[in-house]
Structure formats: C-alpha cells, structure tokens
C-alpha cells in the first residue's frame, strides 16, 4: 500500500494569493493512500525540505508529491532532499501549482479546486512510480570539430587547451575559412589575417589537435559520449608527409587560369595549388576537375619538378573512423551570389561585385595587393556605390531575415575605400543601420562623419551601364522618396549570408534540426544557444545564422565549454526517464513483434535491434531495444507501438492513464 506525502507550498504569496493552500492540503489528506499532507510557506527553503525529510523518515513514506512551482525550477532540489532521507529520488514528483494555476487564475474557489485536481492527479501517478536509477554512459574524451574557420579553430583550441584530444575536419585544402579572406575587421580595423594566421598555426602545431584538411564527414553513428564518425579523406594527389611546400609544382603547373576561390574569382590559381600563401597546412592539393592529367591523361609536370617525389596520382579517397564523445559543428556560412538580382546586373557587369569580393580587393594579400582597382579595367574607381541588404530582409526574394554583418562591413568598406582612394566618393544605400555591438555605432558614425561616406536611406531599383559608367537608380526616402541617380564606377552588393552549401545533407547525416533557410537549429534560442536537439552535438559560428567574428568566437568558446564540461567526468549521468521495451518475466515473452515502426519514428536513432536467443543460441525473434544513452524520452515510439510494448520509465502509460482518470473521476 502506498504511503504518499503531499507537501503544498505557498511560494511566499505566489501561490497562496489565489489558492487556498491550507484547503488543498486538507483535501489531499483525504485521498486514499495519502499518509500525510502539509502546507508551508516556502517548501524549497531549508526548513521546508526538513519537513519533507522528517515526514519520510517518521511516516515511512513511499512517495512524495510536492505541489509548488515548476519542476524545471525545483524538481532537482526536492528529489535530492528525498534521496537524503533515504527515498529513491524518482519517487518524488512535483505538480506545478504556480505557473499552471495560481499565476493564471483569479482568486476564487474554482482556482483552489483546480489546485486540488492537480494534486489528486499526481498522487494517483505517484502511487504507480517505481524506483529508478540514474543511467551511466561512458564518455570518449575526444571531440570532433567540423569546419576549420575561425569558429572551428577557436573551439578546437579551447578544447585542446583543456587537455582533450580534438579531431578537426576541414573540407578545403586549408583551414581559415571566410575570415582568412577578409581584409580588415570592424570595428577596430585590425588586419584579419594578422590576427587569424597565428591561430591557424597554433592549431597545426597543437599536440592535442589532429587536423584532417581536404576531408569531410562521411557518416555518423552512435550517441553522446560514444559517437563513431567516419571521415572521408579526399585524395589530395600530394603526399603531405613527403611534400615540403617548396612551391615548385604550382609555379610550373601549365593550368594557370582557374578562378581562385580564395580570391572570389578576382584572381587566378593553378590546378595544383594551395588556396593562399599563408595556408595551413601549407601543402598543395590537385584540383582534379581542372588538372590536365586527370582530364586528358597527359601532363604530370608537377611530378617531374617535385624534388621529393610527393606527387601521387590516382590514389583513391581514404576513410578513417574516429570514436569521439562530442561533436562541434562549425561549418560556417556562404555569401549569396546575387545572380537572382537581374536588376543589379551581377554577373552581367564586371564592376558589380559582392562584399566578399571587395574584401579581396582591399586585402593586402589580394589580387590587387590591397589597392582598390575595379575588376573590368583595373582602374581606381572614383565613385563607388555600396548597397546594403542585397537579398537580406526581402521576403519576396525568400530571405526575410537580416544578415546581421552587412551594416557593419559596408561601413567598413566605405571607410577603407575612403582611406585608400583619396578624393573618392562613396555612397551607401541602406534600409536601416543596425549597429548593435560594442563600439559598432561609433564605427558607423565615424564612417559617415569623419570619412565622409554618403549614406542614403533607400532602395536601389536598378543598375545599368551607360558610357562606361554604372548608373545606379534609387530613392532617398528621407527626402520624401526623392529619386537619386548616381554614375558609379563600381557597385558593391552586401549580399545576404546564407547557409553553407551541403548544410542540409550534413544536418540530415548528423540528425541535427535546421530552419527553413538550412541554418542549424539550436536546442533553445536563448538558454541553449550552442546545443542542438541531439545530445552531444554542439553548434557555433555562422552555421546557426549569420554572425560576426566576436559572436562567432564567443559561441565557439561556449560550445567548447559544453564539450569540456561533458568531458569533465568519466561517465555521463542521465535521468532514467527513457523508453524501455517491455520484458515480461523472460526475454522470449516480450510482446514486441519486431515491426520496428518505432525505429523509423524515433527522432534520435535510439532504437536498436536485439536478437532473442534460446539456450541453443538460435535466434527466436528480433525485438526492439532502446539505447538509454540516446533516448531523450520524447515518447514518439510509445504512441506508435500498437501492442503497447514500449513505455517511458517515470511516465508509463499506466501512470498517464491514472492521472487522466483521476481528473475525469472528480468526486
């Protein structure tokens, strides 16, 4: 027979202002199986907890119902108190009289009656509670970081510096990501490469970091603490161990006219190449799409000139499997090539370029060595128009969100242009200036007030070419929608930041959810900003949404902190509120028929196949088994199981049914 204790909390006046707590306790005392029922001003306080502990000991309670605030808040508190008094912590339940009752209703008899109903429901549930033990899962203390931009670099270094092994996977030949392409960075105008490249080198030299460049995640199995990642090492055609990075190969490569990805097509590269001179690792790879040998079977000049014989043609991709405990996704973003702006003529007019292309023009390592020269004829443009929100905040173009970084980098571009081209004229068309951030607003004001960038609030309707000039037609909405026409030498589009290509496939591979724009989704936008819905997989940087460098680095360190926290223990402790496939008496009488519809329904890949064998070792049947390390207790499988062979511990069908009946059969 159950001996339940009911403890009704006033929560100061939060509950007692509208609920008659004394009456709730009195009514609860009348319920069958309730041994003791008390009310107290602050149940969570030390004396409040003592009341519960003493009642457990004195009355020999088998279950405890605390009618107080949200279990989110104090369930751990009360479960701990119960455990201290010798009761299994999962025999303690909380009903939420505050958010579910007192805060949402007026003071009257019905409110108190509802509170009594809530208590009665939980008393009936608690009678069916079973003692549960926490689940222990071992943790492999090695992290996988996917993406070697500034986010992945920061996360890798933070985790590695805490003493854990890190596998960093980068799909390109070099780490560095978009940040390595940038010229100067707002709001301090420090050179991007100057602050980034030391970090890149640190990654390469760190004893705890294994860098797989030119590699991609092939598949992922397992669960938090115990992932198994298969990584495809794309064939580089160059043996990195033999290569000294002397550069003889790419100096002699006959294919010299391949648009450089690093220079956003403004410069050229060879077929065997390192993306940029400061690349890490600074060893070339062969681009098979463009290499003469791979295309026509002839050439092999690089092989002939290589002094160490490092060139190795026709090697297949290799695969490595790594067991890791946690994963950080840092796959970054992409910049929309604004092809879908026929009105702006990108692709049609050579001197309409993207913000990222302008970064390359302004960069000392860029194709113009930092001089602002327009792509068409190499002349220094005397009038430049910058268009913010090219694509962003435009539901008609399918991107209703703000790309966040464009206001700031456009101000920076205008400023850099003014610094580099004395007497030049810059005009910025904008919708709003969003400069929220430390020293950001000051930076924009500086561009306008000190460097003389001409800010025009309004949209550009059209760009066309006339007599070697780009005619930009827009309106100035602050001057009563007055039409503005500018004869520009160059136009820079602050095109929208979008999800990186392949983000969707990667998310599906890893079972991470994503938003309609293919950016990865956080577990909670405010309180779990670097977690995903899949335990053990974390997010950082611009793969979540467009982010600037400070935010990216902050989230990277945040994700690293989560990983380090996870690795701080040898075993992971999880609440045992997970699904279990029933096992009545012995294995062979499991009512599970092995249809595995639960397996396709499970969002967490927690359902495994288990073979039930007889004494001779023959398989009698195959039934479902829930991996407690992966199960998140969502209950989707329970609702799918036709024969009701799966239950959630702590929230069993029987318990839920008892709760519902308790409220339906109100006396």
């Amino acid at each position: 027979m159950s001996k339940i204790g009911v403890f009704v909390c006033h929560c100061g006046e939060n509950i007692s202002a509208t609920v008659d707590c004394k009456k709730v306790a009195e009514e609860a005392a009348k319920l069958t199986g309730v041994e003791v029922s008390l009310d107290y001003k602050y149940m969570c306080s030390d004396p409040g907890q003592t009341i519960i502990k003493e009642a457990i000991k004195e009355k020999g309670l088998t279950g405890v119902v605390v009618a107080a605030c949200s279990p989110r808040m104090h369930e751990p508190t009360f479960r701990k108190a119960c455990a201290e008094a010798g009761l299994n912590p999962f025999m303690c339940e909380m009903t939420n009289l505050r958010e579910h009752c007192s805060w949402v209703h007026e003071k009257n008899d019905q409110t108190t009656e509802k509170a009594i109903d809530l208590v009665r429901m939980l008393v009936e549930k608690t009678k069916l509670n079973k003692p549960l033990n926490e689940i222990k899962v071992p943790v492999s203390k090695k992290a996988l970081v996917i993406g070697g931009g500034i986010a992945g670099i920061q996360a890798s270094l933070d985790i590695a510096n805490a003493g854990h092994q890190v596998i960093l996977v980068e799909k390109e030949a070099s780490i560095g990501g978009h940040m390595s392409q940038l010229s100067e960075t707002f709001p301090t105008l420090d050179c991007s490469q100057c602050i980034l490249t030391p970090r890149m080198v640190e990654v390469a030299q760190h004893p705890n970091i294994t860098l797989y460049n030119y590699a991609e995640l092939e598949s992922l199995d397992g669960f938090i603490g115990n992932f198994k990642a298969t990584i495809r090492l794309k064939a580089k055609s160059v043996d990195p161990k033999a290569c000294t990075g002397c550069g003889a190969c790419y100096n002699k490569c006959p294919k010299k006219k391949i648009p450089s990805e690093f220079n956003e097509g403004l410069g050229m590269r060879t077929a065997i190449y390192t993306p940029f001179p400061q690349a890490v690792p600074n060893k070339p790879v062969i681009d098979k799409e463009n290499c003469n040998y791979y295309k026509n079977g002839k050439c092999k000049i690089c092989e002939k000139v290589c002094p160490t014989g490092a060139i190795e043609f026709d090697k297949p991709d290799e695969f490595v499997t790594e067991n890791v405990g946690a994963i950080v996704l840092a796959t970054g973003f992409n910049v929309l090539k604004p092809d879908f702006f026929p009105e702006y003529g990108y692709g049609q007019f050579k001197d309409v370029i993207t913000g990222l292309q302008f970064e390359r023009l302004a960069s000392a390592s860029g194709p113009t060595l930092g001089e602002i020269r327009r792509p068409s004829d190499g002349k220094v443009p005397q009038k430049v128009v910058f268009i913010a929100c090219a694509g962003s905040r435009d539901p008609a173009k399918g991107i209703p969100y703000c790309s966040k970084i464009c206001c700031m980098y456009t101000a920076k571009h205008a400023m850099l242009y003014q610094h580099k081209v004395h007497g030049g004229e810059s005009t910025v068309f904008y919708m709003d200036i969003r400069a929220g951030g430390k020293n950001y607003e000051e930076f924009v004001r500086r561009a306008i007030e000190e460097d003389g960038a001409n800010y025009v609030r309004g949209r550009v309707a059209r760009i066309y070419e006339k007599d070697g000039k780009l005619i930009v037609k827009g309106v100035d909405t602050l001057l009563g929608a007055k039409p503005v026409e500018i004869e520009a030498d160059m136009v820079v589009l602050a095109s929208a930041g979008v999800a990186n290509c392949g983000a969707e496939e990667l998310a599906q591979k890893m079972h991470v959810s994503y938003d309609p724009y293919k950016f990865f989704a956080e577990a909670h936008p405010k309180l779990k900003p670097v977690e995903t819905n899949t335990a053990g997989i974390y997010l950082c940087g611009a793969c979540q949404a467009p982010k600037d460098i400070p935010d990216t680095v902050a989230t990277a360190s945040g994700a690293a902190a989560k990983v380090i926290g996870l690795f701080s223990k040898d075993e992971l402790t999880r609440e045992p509120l997970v699904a279990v496939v029933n096992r009545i008496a012995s294995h062979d009488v499991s009512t599970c028929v092995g249809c595995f519809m639960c397996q396709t329904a499970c969002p967490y890949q927690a359902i495994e196949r288990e073979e039930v064998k007889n004494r001779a070792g023959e398989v009698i049947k195959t039934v479902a088994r829930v991996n407690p390390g992966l199960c998140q207790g969502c209950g989707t499988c329970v609702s799918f199981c036709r024969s009701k062979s799966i239950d959630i511990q702590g929230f069993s069908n029987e318990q839920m049914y008892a709760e519902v009946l308790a409220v339906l059969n109100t006396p």
Partner: protein
Amino acid sequence: MAELNSKVKELFEKDLIDIFIGYEEGTRNPRPYFAYSAQDADNLVFNDKCQGNLAVYLTRKDLVGGKRVGISASYFALKSISQLFDENQLKEDLLIVLGMKEDGSILEFKGLDEIRTYLSEAKAPSKQKDDELLKELSEMSQAERWQFWSDELSKCFKCYACRAACPMCYCTKCIIEVNRPQWIQPWISTQGNMEWQINRVMHMAGRCSDCGSCGAACPIGIPIHLLTHMMTKTVAANFGESNEQGNVLSTFKPDDKENFIL
C-alpha cells in the same frame, strides 16, 4: 489454373518449398488451402471468387514458422506482403510469391524488389461498390453518420474475426488484451465496440492494403472495411501510397505536409 498447379508441383518436386498457401474449391466459394506436397498441388484453384487475403497466414508461426513457403497472391496480398517486409515480419529467402493476375496468369517474382516494382505500376482493382457506399456516408450529416455507425457497431459482439482475417493484425498481444492500463473496454457495448474499431483502423493507417477482408470476415456484415477504405484514401491523399513510401505514418520527411498545424 493448370499453370498454377504445374508451377506449384514443380516447386515441391524441386524441393524449394515446404508449404504452399493457396485456395481449394469449397462448398460455395473457394477456401484457403495449404498444400504440403506435389500431390496436394492438384487441389489448388485460383479464380475471382477467391476471397480474403492469404498473406494473413504468412505471420502464423504455428503454420509457417521456419518453413519455406510459397503463396499465390492477389494484388492485395502482394501489397500486404510488401508491407510485412517493411515491418520485418518476412524473410526473403524463405518465401516464394506467385502473383495471380486477374486473367489467371501467373507472375513469378524473384524477390521483394520485383513485387514492389509490379505494385508501383499495377492498377488497384476497382472498389466501385465501396466507393458508392462511402459517397452515401459522406453525404450524410455528421449526426446521421454517427447514428449509422452507432447502429452498426451496436451489433458487434467482439468476435475479432476482423482481426483474425487481417494480415496486418499479427501482434502477439493486441492492444485490446492490454489491461494495464485497460485502453479499450473489453466487454460488448456500443462505446467499447467503437473504441475497438477506431483503434483497429488507426493501427492500420498507412499499412492497410485495402483488401476488405475485415468486412468480409464480419459474421454479421458490419461494413467495417469502409472505415479502412476511407482511411487508406485519406492517407494516400496526404502522404502518397504506402507501398511507395514505406511506413508512411512513422517516417518523417522534410517535405511532409504540415497543414494540420494551425
């Protein structure tokens, strides 16, 4: 017909099967028949009077457990077989399926993929009579429809013939037998009968072959197959045909319709 008999004979003579599930002549209509030898194969028949869905026997462990099985399968039985494979209830190497076309010719399937290809191209037999009945029902007001089903289901005495006739009802423990908690009233009452039928139909959602065996099996002629027929149409309209999609209702696809979310 002779084609079927000689084919099955051959299967036994070559020792490829231990049992063949088909039909033999009955008093009025053909009835299910289990052939165990080449000699038995002579008794097999297949014609348009053959009722029921033979796939129901494929999950009967007492009958076929561990044996190599052959089966003459109608269009609906093929659909059920495909679904049973999806649900891990059949083993490909233990099953030989002979598809029976409406003209009496035999389709020999070399495995599941061929069955699925055939099903994706084959046209489902017409259900004109059922569609007319459904139309009548859909033209009723909600209250009238409720009354219709209340009247019909008040006659049910829970013999579970519908369950026994259904190839998809192979659970070793049916929800009706689960008593902790007691989801469905097990005794005979209009409400309990309705609970049972609603549950049965929901458990068929996305899995039903629409063969109508449940309705045909009902000894007092309650048209319960109209429930599964309607449900099959609803699922197909929202998620596509189940034999193309696998388990439609337990599988998530990013482009699934979510128009039920307000």
